[in-house]
């Protein structure tokens, strides 16, 4: 794994130098767009419809559409002034109970590993969190934006989950769902409970696989295999190594015959021992 960020966890007077790693990866299979006729990947070009030409990056600025078709232009330098200081710290603000955070708040998970100099402070923080059963809420700056994050312990590793700000969580007011006291019969509820009980098991993530991705993978492999039959030159029959060793032996034998004053003894497997000097 490549670390994606280096910084430190700041916790009271303690500073833990750490490296951050993405804990998850997206394994969706990427398909590219090709021109149907010649199978060339199509290119996206940035075009200005008014000037009717392709526009290079050097001529592109950002703008916000504050009214239809009316823009304020925002310069990169202005954005830079807005972004928080790049302090590279994970600033622990509070400690809370994990159960108090609804999973809806969790966004992305990262592993935090200490730098060599931070082993002790890391172990200390880990043990304190384990013993109190608390998780930390911290402010963290990643890629010039501030986010909220939680820190918790999993095995020997401290995990960081970025969490959404409350105003990023949508409300449920507009959804139509039955009220809590919606009438159902005792018989119906006992049947539903039976059904749930019959499906109860321990959570074993290993048994769930992405069926769609697996089928797509198989389709690609099957097609790619046919492709190689069309394009690939016939693979030479037999074992390349054995053929090459035989050819080498033949060349050695020929050399020996030329200088036949030296007696040679051949042992099994083509190994040669010089009998006389």
């Amino acid at each position, binding site marked *: 794994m490549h670390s994606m960020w280096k910084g430190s966890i700041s916790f009271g007077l303690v500073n833990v130098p750490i490296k951050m790693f993405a804990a998850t990866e997206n394994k969706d299979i990427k398909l590219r767009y090709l021109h149907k006729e010649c199978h060339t990947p199509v290119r996206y070009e940035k075009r200005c419809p008014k000037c009717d030409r392709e526009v290079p990056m050097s001529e592109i600025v950002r703008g916000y559409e504050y009214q239809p078709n009316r823009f304020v232009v925002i310069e990169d330098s202005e954005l830079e002034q807005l972004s928080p200081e790049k302090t590279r710290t994970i600033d622990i603000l509070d400690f809370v109970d994990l159960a108090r955070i609804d999973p809806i708040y969790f966004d992305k998970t990262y592993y935090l590993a200490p730098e060599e100099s931070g082993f002790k402070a890391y172990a200390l923080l880990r043990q304190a969190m384990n013993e109190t059963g608390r998780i930390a809420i911290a402010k963290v700056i990643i890629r010039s934006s501030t986010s909220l994050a939680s820190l918790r312990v999993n095995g020997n590793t401290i995990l960081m989950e970025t969490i959404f700000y409350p105003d990023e969580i949508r409300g449920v007011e507009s959804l139509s769902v039955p009220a809590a006291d919606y009438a159902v019969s005792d018989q119906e509820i006992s049947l539903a409970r039976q059904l749930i009980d019959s499906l109860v098991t321990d959570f074993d993530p290993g048994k769930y696989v992405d069926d769609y991705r697996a089928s797509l993978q198989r389709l*690609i492999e099957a097609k790619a295999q046919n492709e190689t039959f069309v394009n690939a030159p016939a693979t030479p029959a037999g074992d390349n190594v054995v053929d090459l060793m035989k050819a080498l032996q033949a060349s050695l034998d020929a050399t020996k015959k030329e200088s036949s004053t030296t007696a040679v003894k051949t042992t099994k497997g083509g190994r040669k021992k010089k009998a006389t000097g």
Partner: protein
Amino acid sequence: MTTYDIFAKGIAPMEPTLHRLPPLEEGWVHQVKWDGVRIITYTSQGQVVLRNRKGNLRSDHYPELQQLQSLSSISPCILDGEMIAFGESGMVSFPKVLRRDLLTNATRLAQAIRQIPIHYMLFDIPFYKGRSIHQLPLEERRALLQDAVSRLDGPFYIAEDYMDGQALYRSTSEMGMEGIVSKRLGSPYLYGTRTDFWRKAKHVKRLLTVVGGLSVRGKQVNSLLLGLYEGDKLRFIGKAGSGLREDHLRQLTAMLSHVAAKAPCPFQVGPRPPTAGVYFLPPALVAEVEYLEWTSDLSLRSPVVCGFRDEDPQNCQWV
């Protein structure tokens, strides 16, 4: 290092020193120098872990080697060898094995396993049945290796020992192989050391290449931009200046006035050629070069121009 460290981080393998010729005296065995990627295998508790010379993991790159799980009776053990692949001509091809070594994408790897079969040439076993046996003499380690691997199914081979280094050097040269490695009888395995117990003698290799551009200093041509065809696409394989004679340079410089200053770059694959101070040419001229080996980004190491040849550029094919 503890056994745990050895298996967690990997060892640095023993390396040979470079010599112009193999040793003449008695007391050495000689082996073919296989032109591939050094791969160290660690087997422990039914697991097979592969690392390259720098200790980077390669287990996912060569799933064929998982068959070495069957070495459980001598595990934990460490095997040292060279991973090789063959080109269409039936000769060992470093670019081919490198293509395998750079692949991690599962789909492409599945295809590459069929297209580029690999072969593992084993030559040492520094760790055996849970302890380091680096102090054992070469011949004893070799016997243990032979005993362990000879019964295995799979693309595994043991590097052949030859007693006559001079003959092996000549024959490998005739066959266009990379060179030979000579090993001192009775010598130990020294981790992470470049030592005189192992000596390599390499052959200079030759190649016909397509000239795809000229690089200019002042107003004089000083080197060639070289390429090889990969199918119908020209791959950039590096710059070569040494070996060019005064009259070559004069003629090439005279050519410049006929060359468009902004001709399109003929190289379509491979590393990016330089563009500053470069005149690109349509691929027509063929140069023969000598070179030491391929670098890991598939450029020629230390190329020397031997001359120009009247050949069809299309015959200058990659692998």
